[in-house]
């Protein structure tokens, strides 16, 4: 549904996009994850035909963003980081305006405005001007405006930045509904949890490049090892265990005599766990505790995007 290849875009001396490749299958969510200034917003602006790329190509819903922008615009909805609603119009008028400019017939525009106000809990507020809305309400209205024409592809640029937890959870459920209905979603975020929760695939972007791409699970396993911690009753047991467990996992067992633990970094947690239990049992070493710690996306993210740390 979205194909991007070798996309480049510079603003003066700043290379905002430095050769980006992406592919998003229909009905899935791609999370574009990266720190501020990584190029996420520029990528969305190019894909939504708001910015023209310097090089490379991008197709959205089968249309080229440079040569067929009108067709692309018929297929997309965009909700930005800054809520693009008109403060002088009511909530309903904002949706009607978006509907008419998306070239819905007037009855269809009215019906969609009513449906969306109801879905986003803005039916009563729909009669007030958007200038009187809270930040969360304005963001919901902005998202509703992006969905007016039932687009095939929805771009959400940092949709939850600055939202309270309840509004964020609400927005997440909207994204899940969209995907269940078959919509393709590209969302940018600085929040790892958000990408982990919503995205089928994540592209980590830094300094205008994709530095890692995969499912959340793949990224975690590829980039940071699972830690297997063995807690032992005595220092003798620690010594025996560290000797016996050598060779399991990716490195030398790390021994912490004070805490009486042996820590292994392993690629496949469950398999390593079985092996550890088997070897310690054979050696007659009693164990106080065993635990597996999955790496967090935070670790992944930091290891990928820390520049000259």
């Amino acid at each position, binding site marked *: 549904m979205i194909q991007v290849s070798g996309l480049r875009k510079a603003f003066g001396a700043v290379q905002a996009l430095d050769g980006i490749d992406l592919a998003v299958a229909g009905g899935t969510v791609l999370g574009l994850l990266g720190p501020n200034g990584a190029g996420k917003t520029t990528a969305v*602006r190019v894909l*939504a*035909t*708001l*910015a*023209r790329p310097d090089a490379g190509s991008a197709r959205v819903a089968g249309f080229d963003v440079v040569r067929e922008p*009108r067709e692309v*615009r*018929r297929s*997309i*909805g*965009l909700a*930005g980081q*800054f*809520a*693009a*609603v*008109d*403060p*002088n*119009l009511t909530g309903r*008028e904002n949706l009607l*305006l*978006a509907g*008419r*400019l*998306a*070239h*819905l*017939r007037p009855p*269809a525009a009215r019906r*969609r405005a009513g*449906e*969306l106000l*109801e*879905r986003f809990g803005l039916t009563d507020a729909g009669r007030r*001007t958007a200038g009187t809305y809270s930040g969360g309400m304005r963001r919901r209205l902005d998202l509703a*405006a992006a*969905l007016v*024409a*039932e*687009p*095939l592809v929805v771009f959400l640029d940092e949709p939850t930045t600055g939202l309270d937890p309840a509004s964020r959870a609400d927005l997440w459920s*909207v994204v899940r*509904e*969209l995907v*269940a*209905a*078959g*919509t393709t979603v590209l969302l940018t975020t600085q929040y790892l949890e958000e990408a982990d929760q919503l995205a089928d695939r994540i592209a980590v972007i830094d300094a205008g490049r994709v530095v890692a791409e995969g499912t959340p699970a793949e990224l975690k396993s590829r980039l940071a090892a699972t830690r297997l911690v063995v807690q032992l009753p005595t220092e003798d047991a620690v010594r025996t265990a560290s000797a016996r467990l050598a060779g399991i996992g990716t490195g030398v067992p790390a021994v912490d005599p004070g805490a009486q633990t042996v820590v292994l970094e392993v690629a496949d947690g469950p398999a390593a766990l079985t092996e550890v239990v088997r070897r310690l049992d054979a050696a007659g070493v009693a164990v106080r505790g065993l635990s597996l710690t999955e790496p967090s996306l935070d670790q992944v993210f930091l290891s990928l995007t820390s520049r000259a740390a």
Partner: protein
Amino acid sequence: MSTGTTTSAGPDRADALRPVGRPGRPPAQEYRPLLGWAVTDALTVTRRNLVGQLRQPQILVFAAIQPIMFTLLFRYVFGGAITVPGVDYVDYLMAGVFVQTVVFGGIATAVGLTEDLASGVVDRFRSLPMARSAVLTGRVLADVARNLLSITLMVAVGLAVGFRPDSVAGLLAAVGLLLLLGVAFSWYYALVGLVVGNAEAAQAAGFLVIFPLTFASSAFVPTGSMPGWLRAFADNQPITAAIDAIRALVLGQPLGEVVPVALAWIAAITVVMAALAITRYRRAR
């Protein structure tokens, strides 16, 4: 028709998903020739701009008070000391006030456009399949409507303080010319709004050009009373050309020379400013 433990919100899944949209079905969008959409979209945006302005009555009120104050100031405070041979000063004055009203009023376009750029409304418009031109033409058309309102108001104020146009036909022709002048300056202000980027700067930048043009003109006093260098400027600039033509129309003076000059200025400003504004709008991506 599952009634059991599924998580879908209703008995019919498609219906439950309806609110966020069903992207698989045929598009509900209407197809028309591009030119047809250019007109429809421009009118849609015009209406949006007018509604927005009507809902900020404080801005409208202040915009209206300014020319009224100028009228009163020049009619009653300075007017007694200004003598224009052959006409009542109030009749001389109103042409200047009308032009000033139209030219200053356009600043709303610069401010509105910068606000739309900053708030992301223009980005939303650009992501929609609407005619690109509608963002700017919608501004210009809204200005035409607003100018018609403010000119009508100022004609009424003028009549109240003793302004007596020579003929209704002349007055109506003058209103038409004022609206054309308004279009020319709307494009100028659109360009200012696109270039400058924030509302306060747009206001300041707009006035920077308009203020000297308006006062170093024949708006309030005949240019003959100015020192030579200033007179040379005042006699050969568009605001004076417009004022002289409007004045000729409302006072029933000969039109042969002044009206073509004014129309030429208006056409030139419109073409140049529109070309620059449209280029700027297109390039900003």
